[in-house]
């Protein structure tokens, strides 16, 4: 006969106000197998825990039911306390009588709440009787981290992990690390030059002996699980030998062919053998194989002729490498909303309507104009610029429903940069609201208006069109209640930040979730903001949603602390909620193998003494199994069961109904 203890928590008044906990405790005591029961004010408090442990020891309890808050709150607490009192922690079960009973049934007579609590407690007691002792699974940890994306968030994460003494590989799809931040001119609210604060970090990452940079590379496949990921990486052919190239630049100086520069967002051209920008890390060029005449039709080859160290190799092929990692950090960043979405603003049709990011390039000292603000159409200095905020953001019908968060701030910065460079220029800003939450952010926006004379107009723009070399902007000023028409020289759109176009493919490769806007889902938006549902995969920066540089950097450091905690021991323990196969009844139909989303079930050969295969059996890999239980229901011979949620346990609970 089991010796079960039932502990009913009053949770102050949270449970007690609608549930008669003493009555529940008294009734529970009458149930077969229950030898002890009590009602207590706060079971989770220190005295509550002490009483709990004491009761287990004094009454020699071998099974525990705690009727209290949701198991998502305190299951771990009570299992730990049970373990401390000498019990197997999996002999402790929680009946959820707060979130799913006392808080949702407001009957002051306590009748409804007490009856339901009794049912829930009884079901849990019956389930508990079928519990088996389980032991936590320990798995080895590979102490190497993979960082996907070499923007500021990824660089920060890599530096912090590497400084903690562990190897890191940064996989970056572009020829250089740096990400979107490398494109920025100055950064708000300090007006630091972006390159000046970013490039030292890029160089530090390159020179760090624990960090390897796999630029021009992409993730092909991810196998395995926390502590033991096996990742296949495609290192695209650069046609340049990285070990001998000195980055002298002779090749791209001499290359006679040009293509549109991705980094400059169409504002200038680059060569066909190129580095995306002068401060690129690593400073090694790549050949654009879709444009190079030598590769396409075996003509030219000038770069190879001028290369001193003979680093050009036109025969180079994509390399596929497979490496092992313990943790994966996703820091893939953001894209900008495509041009095609802003017909009424003339973006993509009128040359002098540009995006905020293109304005960054114009203002950047290393940009196509050397930092001078010039109209793309005729290279003249614009005397008035209209900035349109929320281009796509907060516009559910044609754009995205969310606020892109950084546009209010960078638009204020643009107006300042513009005034600093064109002293007689006038900036107009059409805005919906100004969102400047953040340290010294509000003061920054006020500065743009008060010191740098930006004219802020609250309202939307209805139409942008070209007339006599000017860009005419029609809109409403809702504060004065009038229609406005501005003859501008240039228009800058604060285009919405959107998730990467490749976001869903990578999510499926990694087994992580994404929201309606294809930004990756955190495990918990408040309390686990950098974890994902897949253990060992972490998120940093704008791949999880719009955020600014300080936030991305903090997240980079946050994921590093998660990875370092994981790497702090050689082995890690995980919950033993895994599938088990009954070797007697398994008839090797492989329905479980086919249904498993984690490829955690393999076909095992059973051999006799001579080594002949006599039988085939399904075998569960505890490291890979995540405990979803799909295989249990797929099994025709009922040979598979799920620890912690066995058929016996579920049927016992149903039978009490």
């Amino acid at each position, binding site marked *: 006969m089991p010796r079960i203890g039932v502990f009913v928590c009053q949770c102050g008044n949270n449970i007690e106000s609608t549930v008669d906990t003493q009555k529940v405790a008294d009734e529970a005591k009458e149930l077969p197998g229950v030898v002890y029961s009590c009602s207590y004010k706060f079971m989770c408090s220190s005295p509550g825990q002490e009483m709990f442990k004491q009761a287990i020891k004094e009454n020699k309890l071998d099974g525990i039911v705690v009727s209290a808050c949701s198991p998502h709150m305190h299951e771990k607490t009570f299992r730990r306390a049970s373990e401390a009192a000498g019990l197997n922690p999996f002999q402790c079960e929680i009946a959820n009588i707060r979130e799913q009973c006392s808080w949702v049934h407001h009957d002051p007579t306590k009748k409804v709440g007490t009856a339901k609590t009794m049912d829930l407690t009884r079901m849990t007691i019956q389930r508990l009787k079928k519990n088996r002792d389980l032991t936590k699974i320990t798995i080895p940890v590979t102490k190497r981290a993979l960082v996907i994306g070499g923007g500021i968030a990824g660089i920060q994460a890599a530096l912090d992990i590497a400084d903690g003494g562990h190897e890191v590989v940064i996989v970056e799809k572009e020829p250089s690390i740096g990400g979107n931040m490398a494109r920025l001119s100055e950064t708000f609210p300090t007006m630091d030059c972006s390159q000046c604060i970013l490039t030292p970090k890029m160089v530090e990452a390159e020179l760090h002996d624990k960090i390897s940079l796999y630029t021009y590379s992409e993730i092909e496949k991810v196998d395995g699980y926390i502590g033991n990921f096996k990742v296949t990486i495609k290192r695209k052919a650069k046609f340049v030998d990285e070990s001998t190239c000195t980055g002298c630049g002779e090749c791209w100086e001499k290359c006679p062919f040009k293509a549109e520069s991705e980094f400059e967002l169409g504002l200038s051209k680059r060569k066909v053998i190129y580095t995306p920008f002068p401060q690129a890390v690593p400073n090694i060029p790549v050949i654009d194989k879709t444009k190079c005449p030598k590769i396409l039709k075996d003509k030219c080859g000038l770069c190879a002729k001028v290369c001193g160290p003979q680093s050009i190799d036109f025969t180079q092929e994509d390399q596929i490498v497979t490496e092992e990692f313990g943790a994966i950090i996703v820091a893939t960043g953001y894209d900008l909303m495509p041009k095609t979405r802003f017909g009424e603003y003339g973006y993509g049709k009128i040359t002098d309507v540009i995006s905020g990011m293109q304005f960054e390039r114009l203002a950047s000292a290393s940009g196509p104009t050397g930092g001078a603000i010039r109209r793309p159409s005729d290279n003249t200095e614009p005397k008035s610029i209209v900035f349109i905020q929320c281009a796509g953001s907060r516009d559910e019908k044609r754009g995205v429903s969310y606020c892109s968060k950084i546009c209010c701030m960078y638009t204020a910065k643009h107006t300042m940069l513009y005034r600093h460079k064109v002293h007689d220029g006038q900036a107009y800003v059409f805005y919906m609201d100004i969102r400047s939450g953040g340290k010294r952010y509000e003061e920054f926006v006020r500065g743009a208006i008060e010191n740098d004379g930006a004219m802020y107009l609250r309202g939307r723009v209805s139409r942008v069109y070209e007339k006599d070399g000017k860009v005419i902007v029609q809109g409403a000023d809702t504060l004065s209640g009038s229609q406005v028409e501005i003859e501008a020289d240039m228009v800058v759109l604060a285009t919405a930040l959107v998730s990467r176009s490749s976001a869903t493919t990578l999510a499926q490769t990694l087994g992580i979730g994404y929201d309606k806007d294809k930004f990756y889902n955190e495990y918990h938006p408040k309390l686990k903001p950098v974890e994902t*549902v897949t253990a060992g995969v972490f998120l940093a920066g704008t791949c999880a949603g719009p955020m600014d540089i300080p936030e991305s950097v903090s997240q980079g450091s946050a994921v590093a602390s998660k990875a370092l905690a994981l790497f702090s021991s050689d082995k890690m323990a995980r919950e033993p909620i895994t599938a088990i196969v009954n070797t007697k009844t398994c008839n090797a139909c492989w329905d479980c193998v086919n249904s498993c989303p984690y490829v955690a079930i393999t076909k095992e050969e059973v051999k006799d003494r001579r080594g002949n295969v006599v039988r085939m059996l399904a075998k569960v890999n505890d490291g890979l199994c995540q405990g979803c239980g799909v295989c249990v229901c797929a099994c025709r011979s009922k040979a598979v069961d799920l620890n912690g949620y066995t058929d016996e346990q*579920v049927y016992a609970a149903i*039978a009490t109904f």
Partner: protein
Amino acid sequence: MSEEAKAETTDSKESFEPKIMAFVCNWCTYAGADLAGTSRMEYRPNVRIIKLPCTGRIDPLFIIKAFENGADGVLISGCHPGDCHYTTGNYHARRRWIAFKDLLDFTGIDMSRVHFSWVSASEAIKWVELINNVTDDISALGPFMDFKRLNKKEAE
């Protein structure tokens, strides 16, 4: 214990309060139901939840067993398609459900007594509405007597 439960179901004949068993997944619907509590919403007290890791773990037999043990209705709810914590478990559940539906009908279970829904961890309001609607629907249908009569005969 089952005797006591059966006694309760016979008691409830006079003023009919349906008994509904809900099989929900741990990650979406269970968390959604918790959120309804944290937000102090109110709903009908007729549902008893059994938590499973995933809707993919829900064996069709659970449904039959629930009816056999006196349930007047059964509710199954998990993550929305595409949002499964285990990537594809809810697709298995949905496929299994489609295949099993006709079989349930064949065993004499009125299909309007079985509800299938998707409730995410943030959809507390949907959960409350779901429970209230399902309770109303099952109340309108009256107690599920077919299996209870069978049980009685067995007992005799």
